[in-house]
């Protein structure tokens, strides 16, 4: 009895010893590849659980099929080891010039390959093989942009920029409550310099990039304003700015017809819509045009929130059909129905997609309004963003959705059938005049809007003549 305990202890000790050395052996290559710098060694050690998992879940090879991960590794090694970049490719994205010369011989010094970019491309290739245009890889910059759009805010000065006919970048509209307007920037100001750098000849996207920066830093602008002879200097603190998702206006004050444009469905969209509806109501709105033209969609939650404002409670806004066929109904949220119901027209076109189609489809199926315009895009698939290490992500189609009546509106690739057909088809003007000002001529060159106003006037007329029930 006395001798068994030391024996057991020894066995346990040996097992522990074995485990420790197994781990050392296991991570040996990673640590060695890390080049022995502390950060590398740390990454290598932290990766051990992942590597173990990778090993455990090693998929079984199938005959006649290439193994994707192994093929990637094989090609990557070969490219890194053997590819000789011809001079013409030096400027492309993948090749980076190393700052230190390894060989010491300047004549044969070569650019090295950017392994990360190559891997991103491989991943893009893997996802492209799914033949699904809505599934794709988001590299860190794509992903950041997407998050900004979905969160509905970004860091900047809050001025909507545009290009004028002379090719200059000017402030189309300083957003209310934002740093730009507080600093005294006015509508029509032409931007000459950003942080001392001239913007002459630069693209509007480049100028926006120059103005953007980290929160609470300052950007200096030199501006030409109207008839002022001297350029004006501004120093503006960059702050978090909310995207304006909603625009609204009373298009027919006499009959009380309000117009509400939704650019995209993000987490701020419903809140902004609430404010816009309140403002329209304060201007005695009696009927509403919801403009979803060119709205590419956005968050599913936002579509449900906004859809809940316009369709009767007790039913679903949309039905989600998961992989394997299970369905779940996303019901109308009654707490969103805090505004009156008005006669409603929804404007749609071929660029109204995804979340726009969820809302338009629910309104059509429940007869809550009249759809005017052209057949919508036809995207009946839901994507999920799955974040990856290193600030990248995958956008992947995870489910289908159906309208409340159970229609799959996804456009078929072969028959090209799909999308939501409007109740009244009206095409846009093919060739609007060059000098149309979209603010003053909103109705003039827009036959879809004209039709919407006409339909709503008719509805209002029948409401006043007592045919209320027939309209709803």
């Amino acid at each position, binding site marked *: 009895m006395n001798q068994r305990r030391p024996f057991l202890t020894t066995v346990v000790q040996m097992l522990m010893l074995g485990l420790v050395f197994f781990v050392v*052996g296991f991570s040996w290559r990673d640590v060695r590849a890390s080049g022995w710098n502390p950060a590398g060694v740390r990454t290598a050690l932290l990766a051990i659980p992942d590597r173990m998992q990778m090993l455990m879940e090693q998929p079984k090879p199938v005959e006649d*099929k290439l193994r*994707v991960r192994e093929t990637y590794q094989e090609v990557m090694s070969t490219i890194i080891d053997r590819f*000789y970049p011809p001079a013409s490719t030096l400027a492309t994205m993948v090749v980076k010039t190393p700052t230190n010369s390894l060989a010491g011989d300047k004549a044969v010094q070569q650019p090295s390959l950017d*392994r990360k970019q190559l891997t991103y491309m491989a991943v893009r290739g893997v*996802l492209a093989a*799914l033949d699904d245009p809505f599934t794709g890889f988001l590299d860190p910059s794509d992903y950041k942009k997407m998050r900004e759009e979905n969160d509905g805010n970004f860091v900047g000065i809050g001025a909507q920029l545009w290009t004028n006919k002379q090719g200059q970048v000017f402030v189309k509209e300083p957003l209310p409550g934002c740093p730009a307007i507080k600093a005294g920037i006015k509508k029509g100001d032409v931007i000459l310099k950003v942080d001392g750098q001239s913007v002459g000849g630069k693209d509007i996207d480049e100028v926006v990039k120059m103005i953007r920066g980290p929160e609470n830093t300052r950007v200096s602008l030199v501006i030409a304003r109207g008839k002022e002879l001297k350029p004006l200097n501004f120093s503006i603190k960059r702050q978090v700015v909310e995207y304006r998702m909603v625009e609204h206006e009373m298009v027919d004050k006499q009959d009380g017809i309000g117009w509400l444009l939704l650019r995209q469905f993000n987490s701020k969209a419903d809140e902004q819509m609430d404010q816009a509806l309140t403002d329209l109501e304060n201007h005695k709105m009696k009927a509403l045009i919801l403009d979803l033209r060119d709205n590419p969609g956005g968050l599913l939650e936002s579509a449900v929130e906004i859809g809940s404002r316009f369709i009767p409670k007790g039913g679903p806004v949309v039905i989600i059909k998961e992989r394997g066929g299970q369905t779940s109904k996303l019901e109308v949220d009654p707490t969103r129905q805090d505004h009156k119901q008005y006669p409603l027209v929804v404007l749609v076109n071929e660029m109204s997609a995804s979340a726009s189609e969820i809302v338009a489809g629910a309104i059509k199926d429940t007869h809550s309004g009249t759809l005017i315009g052209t057949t919508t895009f036809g995207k009946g*698939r839901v994507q999920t963003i799955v974040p990856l290490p290193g600030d990248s992500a995958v956008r992947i*189609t995870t489910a289908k959705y159906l309208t409340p009546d159970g229609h799959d509106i996804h456009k078929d690739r072969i028959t090209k059938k799909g999308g939501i057909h409007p109740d009244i088809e009206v095409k846009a003007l093919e060739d609007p005049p060059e000098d149309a000002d979209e603010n003053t001529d909103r109705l003039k060159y827009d036959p879809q809007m004209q039709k919407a106003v006409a339909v709503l006037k008719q509805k209002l007329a029948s409401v006043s003549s007592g045919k209320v029930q027939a309209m709803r």
Partner: protein
Amino acid sequence: MNFSKRYIWPLAAVIAGGALCAGNFASSSLHVSAARTSQAVEPLTLYASASADATMGLDYDLDSLQLVWKVLNIVKDYYVDEIDPYNNSKMAHSAVKYMVASLGDSNSQFLDKDASTTLSEMAQGRFSGIGAVLKIRERKEPNFTDQQLTVVAALPGSPAERAGLQPGDVIEEVDDKWIMSHDPFSDVYKLSKDYKATYQQKKHAFDSAKELQERSVSLDVVSQKLMSAKEGELKLKVSRNGKALPPIKLTPGVFTPELVQSKMLDNSVGYIRIVLTTPQTPAEFRKALSALVGKGASSVVLDLRNSPGGQMVASQEIAGALIGPRQFAQVLHSRGRVDALNGRGNPVGKVRLVGLVNLGTEGTSEVLAAGLREAAGMKLIGDTTWGNGFERTAFRLEDGSGYILTTGKIVSPSKRDFNKVGVKPDAIVPMAASRVGQAGDTQLERALAVARRPAAEAALLTIPGATADKDSRS
């Protein structure tokens, strides 16, 4: 118990060592690349490097590997349709295609199974299709880079030769389909950012791009068709020096061209033409050269015109028959490695060489021309050559598909780089490439004159009209 005391340390050592090895082995199965790649590096064709040593081993990156693995898991767990993302040839091919395309090198490309087969057949000297060696040539345009499908050489006896195709001809349409040599919408993108462009201009650009796209066919598909079709009829629209030629109709087929042609031009001057550089060419070349020497040739006109590149090893053996194991070129490889290219085998006999080159002299044939000029004092007569001295290696994947990478750059022994500019001959004698081997071959006449009179060589090379310092292609 004494047992445990006595054996505990040896036992511990054994366990520790065993565990270390087991751990290392376990993790090694994740690193398939090191062992497998060196096997997969199977030079199919082209200029496969002679020194294909595998210096891999530590070549992987943990983060990248994990990224790929995670993405595959995401597809497995979330994608709307259930698929196997681990063993999926389509995904693997697409990944390789994207990786290789991102290198931004038009000579590096993914090869599907068919393309891979065609390539290895060509390397063996079995040709099908129109019988022309085609290459993509890039031409910069204001808004895009045009990838032109260009004829390097039409092989003797091929449908392409009978139809009169010449080196440098650009194939623009096949069977009334536009070969998509650039994104047809590039003008549209440009216009969309142009504030001066009118709506009509934009609409017109968009409509014509769409029309072009609708009747287009991809470069890959078409080049594969031109190289592998075995029957039917093809209608080509070709342009020469920027001018459109009348439509050409030809019937593709299968054929094995003659690799080497030779004859005596007179009592002391022999003639050898290398038509194609395949693994069988060196033996035929050596046989033909011995025959010429046996018949008393002291000079040989080496005709490298319309001779597209082939395997590097074969051209090393050809050089060997002429200069023995001396260096005639060097290859610059990645990581700063420089390898010498030497002749292989013993020289057949001592002959004076006069070389003939033109635009159809490409790849290994250019290497030979530039190399023999420096190593054997061979004078070159004709036109400036194509200008491709990149070593390209074909790698094969397990399922028979593969990919080509540019793996090095070939320069002459004195490090003269002829890429893009071509090898400039010592005497330029302009002549249409289709007249090679026909009556009125003025380039051959000049070469014969030079070969006959070694003493007057310098004078013959600078006959009026032959301005040697003018680049005929510029």
